[in-house]
């Protein structure tokens, strides 16, 4: 057995007598004492190493199981996340209207069509209003003509009336000869009165028509004078808003799709990590194998030690190999492990051991920087 850098000095105290017929050799009590000391420490060390290996294997197993469980939760959460994102992606590009999912781009086209129709209605309305304005302009002129014509009738009627009056005067002068003519003149006067009355009634009606036309014209002017161009130009703003809305939604959708695929990737990566955790199983089996061979070595050593002790006089005791022990102890830099090793070497087989001191867990003992006086 060799140890890095610190091989203990085993000085042979005697040379074997090669000529012994029983096959026995002479060994100095000093060498035997040293060997028994080594054997004792070696056996205990093997025990410690076995315990440490088993402890390490258990530690790795516990940690691996814990990690696997946590990764499994992580994988489930990642899966849930990707499902949630997928749900959002499914509805992101649509709008619910009257219990119907309408795709946003379809909605936008529909609304733009509506506004286009509205603008085109405004244009048609404006054109008709202006046609009406021009028509009523003409009607106004005609009505003025009509008023003038009624005035003309009055003039003619006054002349007719005057003429009839003259005829009556002339008929009375003519005496008996003009009697029938006087009757005609009288009839002409009646006719003139009737025409006058008719003209009067027409004037009153025409005045009403003129008033109506002027009112209508004024209302129409107000309608036509209401500028709808800002409402028409509102289409520009609505179009821009709609385009921006569609663009933004498309962007959101693509970001969400990426997020969903990343979540799915995470989920499958975690699944692979969990599979990778199975290395622990193999490690455990290897450590068990090593521990089994160590147990066989330990048992062999134990048996050999027993046989030798039986043949050696009780006056020869085992000598603790202090230098070797120190070198061994320096290997255990982990304080907790060092503590367990020290306890095992020092206390095993003593009265304290029987009182169960070795069973006490030393994992939390704070001996990291403390000096341990062994011998």
């Amino acid at each position: 057995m060799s140890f890095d850098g610190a091989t203990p000095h085993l000085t042979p105290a005697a040379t074997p007598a090669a000529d012994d017929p029983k096959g026995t050799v002479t060994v100095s009590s000093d060498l035997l004492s040293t060997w028994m000391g080594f054997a004792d420490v070696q056996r205990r060390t093997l025990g410690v190493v076995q315990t440490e290996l088993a402890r390490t294997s258990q530690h790795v197993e516990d940690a691996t199981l814990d990690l696997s469980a946590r990764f499994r939760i992580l994988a489930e959460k990642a899966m849930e996340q990707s499902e949630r994102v997928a749900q959002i992606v499914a509805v992101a590009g649509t709008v619910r209207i009257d219990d119907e999912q309408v795709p946003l781009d379809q909605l936008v086209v529909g609304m733009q069509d509506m506004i286009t129709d509205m603008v085109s209605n405004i244009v048609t309305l404006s054109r008709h209003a202006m046609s009406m304005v021009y028509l009523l302009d003409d009607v106004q002129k005609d009505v003025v003509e009509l008023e003038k014509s009624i005035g003309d009738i009055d003039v003619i009627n006054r002349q007719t009336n005057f003429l009839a009056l003259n005829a009556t005067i002339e008929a009375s002068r003519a005496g008996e000869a003009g009697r029938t003519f006087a009757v005609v003149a009288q009839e002409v006067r009646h006719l003139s009165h009737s025409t006058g009355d008719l003209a009067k009634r027409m004037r009153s009606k025409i005045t009403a028509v003129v008033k109506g036309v002027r009112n209508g014209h004024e209302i129409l002017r107000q309608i036509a004078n209401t500028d709808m161009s800002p409402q028409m130009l509102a289409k520009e703003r609505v179009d821009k808003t709609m385009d921006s809305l569609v663009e933004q939604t498309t962007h959101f959708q693509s970001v969400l799709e990426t997020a969903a695929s990343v979540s799915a990737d995470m989920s499958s990566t975690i699944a692979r990590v969990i599979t990778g955790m199975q290395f622990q199983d193999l490690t455990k089996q290897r450590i068990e194998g090593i521990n089994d061979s160590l147990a066989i070595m330990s048992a062999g050593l134990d048996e050999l030690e027993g046989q030798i002790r039986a043949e050696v006089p009780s006056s020869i005791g085992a000598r603790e190999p202090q230098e070797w022990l120190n070198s061994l102890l320096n290997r255990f830099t982990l304080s907790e492990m060092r503590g367990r090793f020290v306890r095992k070497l020092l206390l095993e087989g003593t009265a304290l051991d029987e009182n169960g001191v070795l069973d006490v867990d030393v994992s939390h003992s704070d001996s990291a920087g403390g000096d341990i006086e062994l011998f």
Partner: protein
Amino acid sequence: MDYGIEQRDQEAAVRLRGRLTFNDHAKLRALIGEMKQNKAKRQVLDLSSLEFVDSAGIGMLLIAREEMVAATKELVLRGAVGQVKRVLTVAQIGKIVTIED
């Protein structure tokens, strides 16, 4: 709004200036009359100096177009800028009247 007519080879170009609104309806009717009397087959309304048109103005431009069609003439709206161009575009006047830049 005011206007000036420029007679060229095959077309008469009318340059409209300022704002074309409802208040100009009598003036525009007179202009339509002049355009009908004009010999040129192609009647161009140069809108490059027109700053503003209201919905009544759009209606009047369409009436002008109808009158030209009735007189077997072609109406062209040329060089609209700013608000005038925007309104003509939004109202899709290009579908009815020839529009030139």
